[in-house]
């Protein structure tokens, strides 16, 4: 860091005209206020959702989390089917996306020839640019029917005795939602893991190579261990995105608040039920229950993001230290 960034510097600067000094102070204050809005938004977000959820919290207490009843007609609300659908669809998505993303990240950071890395990385990141409603549209009309006619019947016919693969299959359901989610979080996980793999100091790789390690052994012994916090961070960030993804999931998960053992069954997620019901309720317990669902989702994603960012920062910091040492 250079001295000019130190606010309490002991250098005597050339005296500025009063107008310019005022300009400096004003600019600093304005910039500070802009930065402070970010803090304010987060604080307001938590306060507003909490306030909105109070009637539901009062009425149902902790029972809200475990109750499976969602009955707007009788004003009975329980969150479990939505929590279940959110967690299972997202975890399944991770199951598909993590191995693929790591493969991509390793390929793009270690194996691919130099000229291919930038364009390929760019194309993979295009997946992140496609709006989620377009994923949803493709999901309803192309992917879900395809899965419902090929992969799902195959599993339910041959492994149907295992509860998680039990039929009937509809196409729409947890499995299709997980596949769409996996595609959507793939660029997030692969880009951040690639970043932390690139941060691994080169001499550590060269040390492994000098000992006669094959390319894969170099990756396994020197790249992966050092990049691990970053990779875990990337996976958690991906999970966070999957948990909160709304449109694409709403369009392919079937929107039925049921807890079923089969991954081919229709389900419901927190984000989807909010998307479907929020605009139609005006007030009362129903709205409070929906806001409480939002609060639960917010709490989960805030925690996951905090954790992930700290982990990603850690690899960044370690890489920076490594670079300093070599300099």
């Amino acid at each position, binding site marked *: 860091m250079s001295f000019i960034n130190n606010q309490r510097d002991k250098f005597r600067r050339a005296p500025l005209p009063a107008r*310019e000094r005022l300009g400096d102070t004003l600019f600093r204050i304005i910039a500070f206020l802009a930065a402070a809005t970010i803090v304010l938004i987060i604080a307001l977000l938590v306060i507003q959702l909490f306030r909105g959820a109070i009637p539901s919290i009062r009425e149902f207490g902790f029972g809200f989390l475990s109750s499976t009843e969602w009955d707007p007609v009788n004003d009975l609300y329980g969150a479990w089917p939505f929590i279940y659908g959110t967690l299972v669809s997202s975890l399944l998505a991770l199951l598909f996306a993590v191995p693929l993303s790591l493969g991509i990240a390793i390929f793009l950071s270690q194996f691919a020839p130099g000229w291919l890395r930038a364009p390929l990385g760019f194309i*993979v990141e295009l*997946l992140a640019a496609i709006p989620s*409603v377009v994923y949803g549209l493709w999901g309803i009309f192309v992917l879900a029917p395809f899965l419902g006619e090929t992969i799902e019947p195959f599993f339910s016919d041959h492994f149907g005795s295992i509860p998680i693969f039990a039929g009937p299959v509809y196409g729409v359901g947890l499995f299709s939602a997980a596949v769409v989610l996996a595609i959507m979080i793939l660029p997030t996980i692969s880009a951040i893991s690639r970043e932390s793999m690139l941060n691994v100091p080169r001499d550590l790789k060269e040390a492994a190579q000098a000992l006669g390690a094959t390319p*894969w052994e170099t990756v396994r012994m020197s790249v992966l261990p050092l990049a691990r916090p970053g990779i875990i961070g990337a996976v958690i960030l991906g999970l966070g995105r999957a948990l909160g993804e709304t449109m694409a999931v709403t369009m392919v998960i079937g929107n039925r608040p049921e807890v079923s053992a089969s991954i081919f069954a229709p389900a419901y997620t927190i984000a989807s039920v909010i998307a479907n019901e*929020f605009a139609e309720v005006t007030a009362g317990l129903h709205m409070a229950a929906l806001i409480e669902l939002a609060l639960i989702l*917010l709490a989960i994603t805030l925690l996951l993001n905090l954790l992930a960012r700290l982990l990603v920062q850690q690899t960044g910091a370690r890489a920076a230290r490594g670079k300093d040492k070599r300099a």
Partner: protein
Amino acid sequence: MNNGFNRRRRNAISGLAYLLCVLATIIALIPLMLILFYVIRQGAPAMNLDFLTQLPKPVGETGGGMGNAIVGSLMLIGIAAVIGLPLGVLAGTYLAEFRSPRLSWTVRLLADILSGVPSIIIGVFVYTLLVLTMKHFSALAGGVALAILMLPTVARTTEEMLRMVPDTLREASLALGISRWRTIVSIIIKTAGGGIMTGIMLALARIAGETAPLLFTALSSRTWPTGLDKPVASLPVQIYTYAISPYEDWHQQAWAGSLVLVIMVLLLSVGSKLYFGRKMRSVR
């Protein structure tokens, strides 16, 4: 016999790992190709001038378009940009130029966390904040929701770009007796301009495709936008409504709308990356 030193076997494992990584990359590209293929194949036939300029027709009548949704989307993006861009750029400037260690660390972390908050939750938040107090759905509420979504992205990219400007430039300017704020505005931000613009374009591309936060802020409408305090149609919400409807020609229109949206988003993100990327390289 120690198998760990079996060179041939180790090379085979390494080759296999290499192949699996290539395979993973190829598998990831398949859905991208498929989505683009379907959006073009299904969307192009329904695309015509009417689609881009006409109002939607009532159920049962064929023809009509998403003209109002396209205008509405531009309007929402405009509102979001007017609110979110100055705030984001200034916040980023604060983080990069006035580095007070503890506060910057907190703000940076919170910005990152905010960018991870699901967009539907931002929608609920803006609903409780604006729609409930103003007592109706409005374009303004939708724009504010989008502004909150773009704020952290703009702030963080601005910060990163400003940090890439070498300190010698700052020192040179200050040594000439130029005040700090003029240094920042007319030298530092200008130097990093290309990078900041790329970040802004990417943020705009992201909010252009957002649906969830608009569902109960801007809501939707079947007429042309009439004012900031009225519900307004948007392309993503229109696509969603049409996609889950039971009507065949609405599905067609949803595909055509997706084609417009994807072109818009890709132009913004790919175009800015290529254009500003080249510009930055030429500066260096």
